[in-house]
């Protein structure tokens, strides 16, 4: 049990450090804050630089724009990269979801055409899966695909699509057969986001941001060559994508403990430092214990990677714990600010603490308890895959899709 790199890992880390220290952009944060266009331009430039030097998608084979590195090398890159990861955030969904799926289901020719520009950030991809009526129950989707000669014609609506407005391509699951059972009537494509008939509308969230979109399909044509997997086997392909979504999801979710401690360090309660208040300390210790547990779960995952093992669904524990904790932390900190906790301070209100940091989390965290698998879906996955408990009773499994009760 130790936290040291193996000699090979240490050497790899050293080379990452050297390259980063020679090439990482400086003072990018100010520019990054100025809006989507400058941020995207920064991101594309950095990603192109990474790719040129062989540091993009390093776990991918070299011929597709990667470096052929191991999983632990990937993790070491991420550790060293630190906050710079934000610059590559635009490409993450494409690379993580679309890239890994193309790797399995696209033709060799397609892989050579699409993967390198995806890795280098030249082309941005998005994921067109969820629908207004199909969230946790993704296989209930209704976007319709009808064969028309060598093309398919798509009609329907997708939702929660990050980056649809600046994406070049998207991966898309559709229903091509409404009479087949739910999971057997789906077909999977990738689609040019500039195709006629695609309309993208931003969704305003309760935190005031618009990070996601609705995407409408009106008689959009997709060539059959852009089908991934066979007609009717879209669910199987989608599972490949989703497995990549869930792997490691735990590591994206972080407690705000450090920020809490910093802010509480400047507060007093009844004339004494707030951090001496025993009720507050008891609550903070609880937060610490669970955030520390999550950090240590992540160390165990890293340890697995170091041995070449993929992390299992166990890592969902981290997301399950932290997503809810983020909400509780925000509520707690607003309580500690007391009256001033009401202030949102998106402006320059000096009475609002830390410019409304925890207020922002108060409104962001509810979505985090849903995104990438709701608390309930994660509990089902953990119950069924890790604890091997029976699946829920499925009333929809063998019915023709049109006969499944939908309340509509």
């Amino acid at each position, binding site marked *: 049990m130790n936290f040291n790199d193996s000699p090979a890992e240490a050497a790899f880390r050293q080379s990452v450090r050297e390259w980063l220290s020679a090439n990482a952009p400086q003072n990018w944060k100010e520019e990054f804050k100025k809006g989507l266009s400058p941020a995207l331009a920064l991101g594309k430039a950095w990603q192109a630089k990474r790719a040129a030097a062989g540091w993009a998608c390093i776990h991918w084979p070299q011929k597709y724009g990667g470096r052929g590195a191991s999983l632990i090398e990937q993790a070491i890159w991420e550790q060293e990269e630190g906050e710079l990861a934000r610059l590559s955030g635009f490409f993450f969904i494409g690379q993580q979801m679309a890239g890994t799926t193309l790797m399995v289901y696209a033709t060799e020719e397609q892989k050579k055409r699409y993967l390198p520009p995806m890795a280098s950030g030249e082309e941005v991809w998005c994921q067109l899966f969820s629908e207004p009526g199909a*969230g946790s129950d993704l296989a209930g989707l209704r976007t319709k695909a009808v064969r028309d000669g060598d093309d398919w014609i798509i009609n329907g609506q997708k939702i929660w699509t990050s980056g649809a407005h600046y994406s070049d391509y998207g991966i898309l699951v559709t229903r091509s057969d409404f009479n087949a059972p739910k999971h057997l009537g789906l077909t999977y494509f990738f689609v040019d986001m500039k195709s006629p008939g695609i309309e993208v509308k931003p969704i305003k*969230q309760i935190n005031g941001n618009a990070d996601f979109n609705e995407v409408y399909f009106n008689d959009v044509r997709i060539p059959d060559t852009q089908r991934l997997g066979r007609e009717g086997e879209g669910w199987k392909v989608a599972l490949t994508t989703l497995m990549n979504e869930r792997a490691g999801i735990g590591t994206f979710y972080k407690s705000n403990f450090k920020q809490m401690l910093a802010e509480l360090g400047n507060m007093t309660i009844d004339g004494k430092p707030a951090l001496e208040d025993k009720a507050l300390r008891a609550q903070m210790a609880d937060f610490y214990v669970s955030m520390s547990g999550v950090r240590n779960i992540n160390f165990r995952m890293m340890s697995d990677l170091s041995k070449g093992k993929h992390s299992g669904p166990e890592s969902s524990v981290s997301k399950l714990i932290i997503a809810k904790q983020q909400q509780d932390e925000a509520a707690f900190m607003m309580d500690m600010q007391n009256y001033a906790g009401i202030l*949102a301070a998106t402006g320059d209100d000096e009475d609002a603490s830390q410019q409304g940091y925890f207020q922002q989390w108060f*409104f962001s965290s*509810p979505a985090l308890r*849903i995104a990438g698998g709701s608390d309930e879906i994660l509990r089902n996955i953990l119950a069924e895959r890790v604890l091997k408990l029976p699946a829920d009773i499925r009333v929809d499994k063998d019915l023709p899709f049109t006969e499944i009760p939908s*309340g509509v």
Partner: protein
Amino acid sequence: MNFEFSQEQEFLREQARDFLTKKCSPAEVRKVLDNPSLSYHSELWQQVAELGWLGTTIPENYGGLGLGYLELCVLAEEIGRVVAPIPFSTTVYLATEAILLAANESQKAQYLPKLATGEILGTLAFAESAGKVSSDKIACAVQNGKISGSKIVVPDGDIAHLAVVAAKSENQQLSLYLVDLQQDSIKIEKQNTIDNSRSFAKITFNNAEAELLGELGQGAHLLAKILDRAAVLYAFEQVGNAQSALDMANEYAKKRYAFGRQIGSFQAIKHKLVDMFAQLELARSNAYYGAWALSTDAAELPLAAATARVSASQAGFICTADNIHIHGGNGATWEFNCHLYYRRAKLLALVIGNDQEWKDKIMDRLLADNQEVMQKKMLETA
């Protein structure tokens, strides 16, 4: 033994609900929430004033309805239910109650009739910084009848005409003052909050006229009394708000299908709804006890009020947060109405002090001088 509202009070509730359902849909709430230049819904406010609700507990000889606190509790719950974007709680539970409690006859004659009709709006200004309000942290001070200093997060501070202000007297003791907010020596800045369907402001007094309210040096005592009473009334608003969130979640759980079933048929969702309901039942029942104590000015009021408040704040957070959660991704959109309740719940849970303060009050009061009597009453009957 009668632990319910009377038929007349239930009739008032029905009227209020009919009126508010019609006049204060979520779309109306959004008119204020989405428009930074609006502080409240003036049309709704005018109608509420016309119904006489602002004078519910003001005696008839001052132009009020002369009803009791139970009627006000009924109205508070209904106002909470529709997340009304109006300064009702501020002018009624805080300012009017402060004047009813502490004002002299001439002050009452001067202000109550106008408060009853809504001709003037009142507020209560006490917080000056983050954290707990305590006498030693209050810097606002009065010298020769002039007040200086500033208050933050003053509810409806930008639209109120009259503020009850907690400030140091010349003898350095906390007292309450009445301050006309329409003076040039007062600077008022609207503050952006977590729920802009309600309005808050920072108020800076620069040698403004201030008139003593109640006895000199009695500020802390009066403030505690005002907040105790307000705690019960806010608790009803919170219960109404939480009830709407639960109703909304319950309805959605029946309407929304996943895996070929109503999502409310999954135990994960069913039982979550029950846990919301259970917290709300506790809060509602604690609020009822608070209403009884308030309406009879019982010795139990301080303890009952603190209990009602903590219970309502807890239920408010659980019901409104889990309402979003049960709505899934939709719940996190601006378009769905879930966030209206979530915002308001947190606002109400902070506007007269956090749970931690009120929990401390619960324990203080349980362990107070009248320990034996109180414990007998509150614990033996349990």
